[in-house]
Structure formats: structure tokens, C-alpha cells
């Protein structure tokens, strides 16, 4: 689980880096680490996806964006009141999360509810019901195929949305200059 510790450290760096470029590159690294972790946790499909998406697409998108906008972050204003509230919110959420974990089944416990209910059927029956060995695929595409339909609808929505917002031929004048002078 050193990997997790490493992840936390990377995440801290990502958040702290003032240079957005550095931040984004580290973010790519972070995604790769996450993908690695997923491999360790037997989630090969997820690892594959995370590597492709997190380290690949997201990074490209981020780079594209910071190339267009300022590459540096302004230092967070040291106003105590603005800093206090986020800390409180985060602290409360954290406490709730930890509180929530206390009654969780232990990590890797084969008798955890999720391993004894519903899921076994996938592992046991999918060979006869669907006939393909990759259970992730059979769940993804058949048992819960509808989620996947939703998923590509999400992509579809996002792609159309980006087209609408910043696609070519948009007629919004560049208002930056006006406001700078005004």
C-alpha cells in the first residue's frame, strides 16, 4: 500500500504547485499511479481505462486549456475567513468519511456482503448465460448494459456541449480587451 501513500503525496504536489503546467503533468502521473493501483487491485479493465482517460485524454485537455488561459495560478489570498470555511467543510466531510469506514467490512474480506450477494451470480453464471470469459465485459455490456448506454449518452452530451460552447464559428466577440480597457 505504499502506492497509496505515494498517491497522497503526488496529490498534495498537484494541489500545491503554483505552476499549472507542473500541476497538470503531475496530474497525469497521478492518473498513471492510480491505474497502477487498479492493476494491483485486479481491476485490469479499469486500469486500462484510467490510463487512457486520466493520463491520456484529460491531460491533453488540461494542457490545451492552460495553453489558452494563464499558466500560473495566483497565490491564494491569505484572508483567514476565506480559508477557514473550506477547512471546516473539508474537515467535517473527512470526519464523516472516517466515521463511515468504521463499520465497513475489512479490506479484501471475501465474506463482505458485496462478495456474497449479487456478484457471485455474475462470476458463476456468466459463462453459461453470456458465454464470454471477461466478466467485467459481460456485466458492463449485458447485465448492466443500460448503464453503458447511459455512459455513452454522457459522452455524447459532453461532446455536443463542448461543440456548442467553444466549437468553431461561435460568434461571441472576444470581450477580454474591452473589459481590460474599461
Amino acid at each position: 500500500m505504499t502506492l497509496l501513500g505515494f498517491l497522497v503525496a503526488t496529490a498534495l504536489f498537484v494541489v500545491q504547485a503554483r505552476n499549472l503546467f507542473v500541476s497538470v503533468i503531475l496530474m497525469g502521473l497521478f492518473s498513471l499511479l492510480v491505474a497502477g493501483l487498479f492493476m494491483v487491485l485486479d481491476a485490469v479493465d479499469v486500469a486500462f481505462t484510467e490510463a487512457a482517460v486520466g493520463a491520456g485524454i484529460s491531460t491533453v485537455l488540461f494542457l490545451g486549456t492552460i495553453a489558452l488561459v494563464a499558466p500560473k495560478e495566483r497565490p491564494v489570498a491569505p484572508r483567514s475567513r476565506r480559508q477557514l470555511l473550506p477547512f471546516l467543510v473539508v474537515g467535517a466531510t473527512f470526519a464523516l468519511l472516517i466515521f463511515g469506514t468504521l463499520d465497513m467490512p475489512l479490506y479484501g474480506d471475501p465474506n463482505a456482503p458485496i462478495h456474497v450477494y449479487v456478484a457471485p451470480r455474475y462470476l458463476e453464471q456468466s459463462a453459461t448465460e453470456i458465454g464470454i470469459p471477461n466478466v467485467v465485459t459481460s456485466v458492463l455490456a449485458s447485465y448492466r448494459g443500460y448503464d453503458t448506454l447511459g455512459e455513452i449518452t454522457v459522452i455524447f452530451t459532453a461532446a455536443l456541449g463542448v461543440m456548442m460552447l467553444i466549437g468553431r464559428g461561435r460568434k461571441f466577440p472576444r470581450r477580454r480587451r474591452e473589459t481590460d480597457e474599461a
Partner: protein
Amino acid sequence: MAMNQHAVLRVVTKLLMPCILLFALYVQFHGEFGPGGGFQAGVIFGVGFVLYALIFGVGAARRVAPPGVLRGVLAGGVLLFTGVGIAGVLRGGSFLNYSVLSKDPLLGQEMGILLIEFGVGTTVAAAVITLFLIFAGQEQKE
């Protein structure tokens, strides 16, 4: 994008492109056995295209994949997926019941999965290309 002057890059890319696309197809159709599937394949396919755009310029890439076509492909994936679902309905099952697609339920399942994964791949590839072209296209304006 000045890279389209480099002859070496151009040639390498031309050689690489089929490999990438082939790999994408492999991932696409091998998903039942190993890791992978429509989504990953779509991403790879898209990335292959991104490479093409990087080397030959966004303008050239956009000529290959104009927005109208991209929108068509994007929607096509969704339509294919829903189409498979509705085919299930028409053959007397529920939405997305693939078993009824063929006389042999197992075969039906495989057919269904293959088709919808292809739908997923199509949409995802188109989405990746769209996103890239748009974000890269912004840069040119600046």
C-alpha cells in the same frame, strides 16, 4: 503546428497509423476475452487520429473529420446501441435483451455485446476526436 514539415515524422506517422488503428480494433473485439472493449478501443482510435492531427495539422484533420461528420458518428454510436436494444424489444424481449437476437441465446448475447461495444467505440472515438479538434482549434485562433 509546424510539425507537418518533417518528412520523417510524416512517414513514421503514416506507418504508425494503421498499427494504432489495428490495435484499436483488436482491443475492440478482444474485449470479451481480456481487458478492453469498446471504450478503450474508441480512445485508442481517437488517439491515433490525434496523432494524425498533430503531424498533419488540425486543418487537415478537420478536413478528414468535419464537424457534421463527427456529429453523425457521435450520434451513430448512440443510435446503434439503442437500435440493438430496440431490436431486442422487437423480437419479443426486453430492451437490451440480446438473447432473443438469435436462436441460440449465447450467440445472441455475443452478437449483442459485439454490436453495442462497437457503438460505444464509435461514439467514444468521435468524442475524443471532437474534443481534441475543438481544443486544438482554439489555439489557432489566438
